[in-house]
Structure formats: structure tokens, C-alpha cells
């Protein structure tokens, strides 16, 4: 059960134990983490699961694929160098301890 920590815009933090194979978006929804919508359910079509990955951890993630790249142009809060879509980050033991910031807005 990899731990993932969500940091709200006000700095408050919530750490949850996610089931392996879940995405950062799914884990947030399963634990009622505020600020993650995931309207499309995980098809990289809505850009409402935008997160900012802790910069020191970016290297642990797979590279951004072309479809995610296309959708990162649609985030409601401005895209940052560490912006990712939560639905495209699949949680494994290797990502235990991942920290993601939630942007000010998703729509």
C-alpha cells in the first residue's frame, strides 16, 4: 500500500494508503480528498485531476506521454514544470511517499 500525500493550496496535508495500481486521481476520490474532480474517470480527457508533483520526486515518475502532454494545455490553474495529471500516475510501491500539491482550481 504506497502512501501518497496531498497538499491543499492552504498547506494542509492528507496522507493516505492507496491500493497498488490505483492512480493518484482514483486514490484521491476513494478518500474524499478535496480539489481533485476526475470528471472523465481516468481517460485523460478533462484535466480536472491536475496536480503539482513534489519537484524532488519528479524523476521517479514515468515521462509525460503525448496524450497527457496534449491535455496539460487544458488545466484550469496555469501549468507548471511539475504539473501532471493524477489519472496518469499509477501508484506502485516504487512511488511510496509521493507528495502532490493540489492547485487552486480545476475548472
Amino acid at each position, binding site marked *: 500500500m504506497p502512501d501518497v500525500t496531498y497538499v491543499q493550496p492552504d498547506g494542509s496535508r492528507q496522507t493516505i494508503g492507496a491500493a497498488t495500481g490505483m492512480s493518484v486521481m482514483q486514490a484521491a*476520490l476513494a478518500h474524499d480528498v478535496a480539489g481533485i474532480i476526475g470528471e472523465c474517470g481516468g*481517460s485523460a*480527457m478533462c484535466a480536472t485531476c491536475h496536480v503539482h508533483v513534489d519537484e524532488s520526486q519528479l524523476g521517479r515518475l514515468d515521462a509525460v506521454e503525448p496524450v497527457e502532454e*496534449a491535455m496539460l494545455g487544458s488545466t484550469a490553474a496555469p501549468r507548471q514544470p511539475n504539473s501532471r495529471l493524477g489519472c496518469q500516475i499509477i501508484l506502485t510501491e516504487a512511488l511510496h511517499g509521493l507528495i502532490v500539491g493540489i492547485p487552486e482550481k480545476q475548472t
Partner: protein
Amino acid sequence: MSTAQLVREAPVSDIDPWSDDFLADPFPYYRHLRAAGRVVKLARYGIWSVAHYDEARTVLTDHGLFCSSGGAGLANFHKEKPWRPPSLILEADPPLHTRTRAVLTRILSPASLKALRTRFEVEADRMVEPLVARGVADLIADLADPYPLKVFPDALGLAADGRDKLRLYGDMVFAGLGPKNAAYDAAMAFAPQVLPYIRDKCSRAALAPDGLGADIYRAADAGELTEEEADMLVRSFLSAGVDTTVNGIGQALHCLARHPEQWRLLADDPSLARAAFDETLRYDSSAPFVFRTTTRDTVLCDVEIPQHEKVLVLLNSANRDPARWEDPDTFDIRRKSIGHLGFGVGIHGCVGQMVARLEAESVLAALARRVETIEIVGDVRRRPSSGLRGIASLPVRLTPKRR
């Protein structure tokens, strides 16, 4: 999957998902299939079916094992020739699919669609106002059919003439997902008049320069697609983006008319329009199933499935799975419907879903702002189709809100 796993025979069912009884009311059959097992073989067609949420999601997201290039419908492209060239998006696998999907994702992304919202809302108001003034309407013939058939081809940049053929094309596409029966033959009989129209109107020269279709050809100019691929993807807009939305909006109106307490919630708060549409797709999506094809011998839930076999993913059954949904047979527009499979999910999740939501939200909100109650006043007729759920007629009385 380990070969050391305990493998057992799959339960076998004689249920026919294209029988008249099944098409009229599939939900008792879905319950039966869910009770029969996690993977059930359908003897009549020699195919495998998954009816639970977890297995449906597994099959849809494991695109390496359960591929799309074997065909989105019953036909097995490993064994028979498709009636049309396989779609470059719906019936393609990575890496080809990744390239076409990235282009479509960009063109149909929320950022690209911002420009369409006002046009969609203005047209919704224009169509809804006279219906409310009249007080009686057929919400299918007067709204669910004409609205998407106006705004979506306009957004695409399709020429105004000959659009009556779009529905005939949709009939062919969705009959083409089912067995080669009388309905299939009847739909395909229109091919000689429909296919030349589709080919001509999707060409670069025939499309308006400022529409979504022209955006596709611009991707070809940029070297992201070949000219032929661009042409085929524009046609995919018409096969995948018209009938699904027409019937999805029809399903939403039918659900809301049948559940007056839900209409009251929406009329009180029209901002629930988008949620009402997603709950409709969970409750009874216009796209009830899709097929995948095994790329190799595999074991799913202890059942051995050989290579190149068709797997029927029963989306509308997964969306009623009591293991995933509380009170699954209750239509509730306030429920958290995110995660429903009405648009599929994963790399093949509906690429036009944000357009569909925008259309449905615009038209449902336009109605909800003006109408206090909807009362069904005549026979509701189902639309016969092997591949889509939808209704042909929804006669209602509309009571306007007091100003």
C-alpha cells in the same frame, strides 16, 4: 498471469444480447449474467462477456492484453473482413493509436472547446424556447434529435446540405457492431447513398476553415498525420459523435421525465445539468457495450481465454454492479457518478466526451431554467438498434416556470 493458476471452465449462457427481449430491457439479463460468473461464455456467438464493474474496468484498461484492433463490435477482424476500414482511433492499438489519440485529445480538449460553449448555449435556448411556449412536445423529435444534429456538424464545419444522411450513417455504424441479421441488412442497404456523401463532405475542400474538421487537416499539415489519416479521423467524428450524443441526450430526457423528483432537483438548480447527464450515462448509457479482442492466451478470473477471442464488455451492466454502486438501480443526479463506464475508460475512453457533456449540459440547463414539470403524455417508443440504447419518441407536456 501465472500458468500455475487454478483454471476452470467458464459458465456458459444462452443469453442473446441482440434478441428483441434483451434489447427491450437488458437489465434483468445483466443481473443474470453477473450472478452467473465473473467471465461468462455466450454460447450463441462463441464470445466471452464481463458484466461486473471490476472486470469491465480491467479489460478496458489492460489494452495490451485486450486490444481494440480486433474490432469494436461483434465481428472478429482476425477472422472476417470489416464492413468498413477499421477506425484509426476506436479500432487501433498503440503506437498508431497514441499518435491519432494525441491529436484528437488536443482538438477536443476543454481548452479548445471553450469557444464552442456560447454557440451551444445560444442554440439550446433557441430550440427550447418555442417548445416551452407550445407546452406540448416530443422531446426526441423536437430536441434530442435536432439539437446535436445542428450544433455538432456546425462545430465540425460540415456543409449544411445532405445532413439528413448522417442518421442513416449512424444506423449503419451501430448496426455494424452487432450480428449480421435483418436489422444489419436494412441499415447497410443505405450504403450506396450514404458512403459517397460521407466521403465527399469530410474532404478538406468541403469543410469550413474554422471548424474541428479543419483542425484535423491542420494536424496533417504539421506532419502529425498523413492526409489519408486526417480524412478517416474526420469521418470518425461523424460515426462516433452524432448518434451517441443524440441518444445520450434522449436517454437523459427520458430518465428525467420518468423521475419527476429528479427533474425538480434540476429545475431548482440547473447547474446540476452536467451531473444529470453523467448519472444518465451510469444509469442507462446510449453506448451499452464495446468489444475487445485477446492478443494472446490469457486467464481472467480463473477462466482461460484463448488468443484472438472476442470479449464483450457490458458497460451498462458494470454501471449497475451493486459491488461498485450503492442502490445501483436508483437514478439519482446527486450521486457521485464519476467512474461510470458510459464513456468507457482508459486510452480508448471516449475522446469526444467533453463535447458530449457540453451539448448535454447546454440543452438540459436551457430546459431546466424554463420548465417546472415534465409529464409524459403518450407512448414512449424504443429506437431499434444493435449497438445503441435510445428512444424514438417521448411525448410530453411541459409546464413553464412562473416568472
